[in-house]
């Protein structure tokens, strides 16, 4: 299952989430507690952001005892990094607008 590029954009549009994802990319797997210590926001907020990143396929979680460890899945960014992926989304959206225009031209 591969999340839609839209989900990736939404997940990464938030600077706090982006910072969390970057930290996991650079420093490897970490607990929610360790991430919270450097995030500048509360632990519930960090957990919520991590859930959004997980829904977008950008992070994995692993339960160990009472702690949840998070790790980055940078490969999930592939559809965005590759311009062909971005352009495919662009053309799909433009075709929607084109069909809408054609329907209006009927009237």
């Amino acid at each position, binding site marked *: 299952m591969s999340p839609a590029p839209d989900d990736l954009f939404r997940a990464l549009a938030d600077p706090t989430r982006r910072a969390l994802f970057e930290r996991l990319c650079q420093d490897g797997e970490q607990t929610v507690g360790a991430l919270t210590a450097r995030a500048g926001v509360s632990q519930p907020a960090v957990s919520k952001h991590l859930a959004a990143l997980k829904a977008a396929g950008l992070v994995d979680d692993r339960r160990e005892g009472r702690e949840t460890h998070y790790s980055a899945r940078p490969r999930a960014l*592939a559809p965005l*990094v590759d*311009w062909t992926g971005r352009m495919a989304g662009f053309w799909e959206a*433009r075709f929607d607008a084109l069909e*809408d225009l054609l329907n209006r031209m009927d009237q």
Partner: protein
Amino acid sequence: MTSPAQSAPGELKTVVIEREIAHPPEKLWRALTQPHLMAEWLMRNDFQPTVGHRFNLRGDWGGVLDCEVLSLEPPHSLSYSWNHRHENPAYDLTSVVTFTLTPTATGTHLRVQQSGFRPDQKQAFGGAHAGWKGFLDKLETVLSQEG
């Protein structure tokens, strides 16, 4: 899915999008080639249906694409260059867009193919984790272009 880590820099890449349109090719052709109609679904422009004509497509995000009509065969196919210069060379895009219209029983099969190079794409991901950070730093630019 294409794997960025295995993409060679300078490699030609192609994206193809196809759609069944419930309108005849002649009408679709007008939407593809008349500037005021193009502006409604694509971008503001100074397009003219003449091979060799140079024009710009101007996006709402402020970006400007440099284009030139390469071929034109009403109401079957239309091709123009689609080049985007960016202050960061890693985001330059040199490509060609080709629309192909095929009549069907219910309207038109529309196909758009975009093929192009982004020569130093390797720099954008770098293969290692450090490369991803560079990409993320530029994400706002990408996001504004998606809008």
